[in-house]
């Protein structure tokens, strides 16, 4: 009990550390006594490591997730759920969809997301692969390119630095990424998407015109501040920007994730619809 109390106090102490991700000027690293930012041989911040997106808690994976992250409040399993990556983050503006597109997003929400592409074991796309919290991602940094491996759906990104996008891109789930450093911030430009993924929340579809700009700023040993701007003139009224934090998980290794092994959910959905079970909601 005492240990949990200490954890709660520590968590309160940590909370403000994660907030500047949403308020600090872009590219400004927040000084922290928690540990210096490791540097690569070229002097750039070294992002190499295994990380957890969508979290703001320090510590090992089990410390950060066993009692709290994976499990609601930990002390009360029936308490309201913590936010999922399918939820709109609390206190943030609604996604700026054009009216016709917002209607389509709402239809998915009302159907409780049974049309989620990942339910068919399709790749999550971006920024969803980065911000989801249940599965780790591994960053491997070299002076010329950065590789990110995602356990969820076993997808990967190869991000050449100071390079141009190829001019013959085939539309893809994870898009084509190129990066460069702006001071201590890694900026990644992504285009070449297909239109088969969701962005950040149930039903948040997009077109092949999607253009994503990511900014990764490692503010101390344990934390990357992540800012992503999504532009898609076919469905959005203006650029949509979200901030999140990505936390270092030392000692964690990526596991195999073979989604097609035993994916029963689409069959469940089909049976529910066939049997006329009402699970939809109206907004």
């Amino acid at each position: 009990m005492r240990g949990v109390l200490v954890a709660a106090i520590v968590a309160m102490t940590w909370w403000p550390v994660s907030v500047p991700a949403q308020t600090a000027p872009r590219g400004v690293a927040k000084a922290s006594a928690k540990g210096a930012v490791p540097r690569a041989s070229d002097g750039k911040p070294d992002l190499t490591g295994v990380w957890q997106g969508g979290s703001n808690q320090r510590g090992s994976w089990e410390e950060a997730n066993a009692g709290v992250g994976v499990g609601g409040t930990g002390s009360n399993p029936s308490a309201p759920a913590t936010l999922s990556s399918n939820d709109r983050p609390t206190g943030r503006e609604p996604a700026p969809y054009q009216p016709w597109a917002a209607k389509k997003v709402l239809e998915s929400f009302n159907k409780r997301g049974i049309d989620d592409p990942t339910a068919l074991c399709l790749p999550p796309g971006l920024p969803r692969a980065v911000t989801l919290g249940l599965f780790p991602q591994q960053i491997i940094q070299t002076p010329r390119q950065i590789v990110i491996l995602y356990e969820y759906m076993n997808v990967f990104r190869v991000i050449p630095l100071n390079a141009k996008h190829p001019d013959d891109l085939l539309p893809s789930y994870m898009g084509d990424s190129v990066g460069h450093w702006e001071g201590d911030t890694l900026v990644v430009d992504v285009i070449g998407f297909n239109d088969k993924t969701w962005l950040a929340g149930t039903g948040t579809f997009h077109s092949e015109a999607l253009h994503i700009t990511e900014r990764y700023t490692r503010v101390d040993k344990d934390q990357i501040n992540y800012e992503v701007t999504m532009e898609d003139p076919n469905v959005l009224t203006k650029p949509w920007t979200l901030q999140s934090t990505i936390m270092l998980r030392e000692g964690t290794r990526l596991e195999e994730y073979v989604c097609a092994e035993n994916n029963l959910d689409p069959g469940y959905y089909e049976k529910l619809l066939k049997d006329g079970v009402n699970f939809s909601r109206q907004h």
Partner: protein
Amino acid sequence: MARRISWACGLAVVLCFLAIPLLAHHSFGAEYDANRPITLTGVVTKIEWTNPHSYFYMDVKDDKGNVANWKFEGYGPGVLYRTGWKKDATMKPGDTVTVFGWRARDGTNWAHSREVTLPGGKKLFFGPPSGTGDGGNTPAVEVR
């Protein structure tokens, strides 16, 4: 006890601010009814450590001695492994466990498993809280 309860309430408030985005691959709300929580005790008969979700089965005896086999769904092996579960060690066929979760909408002997109380009394989460993967309480767009 009173101190423990008030302390727990305080902790809950603290944790409300630690919003940790998760991802549930499937829609909880389509398959399960958050208004039908259930707690069952029984004997584990089979465990399937599979992606994207794991399943286990349990024989549950009712007041009249009739035994029914229930199916429970939870996280995949990677998520469970990282949060304290070990295949063929933490929970095995033959173990008597207590499961808290929510019943499936189709009314069969099937439920989402949230918390499992193991033979030694240790509690571990086998699946996410209710309401994950189905969009939560607020849609991504403004409702006009």
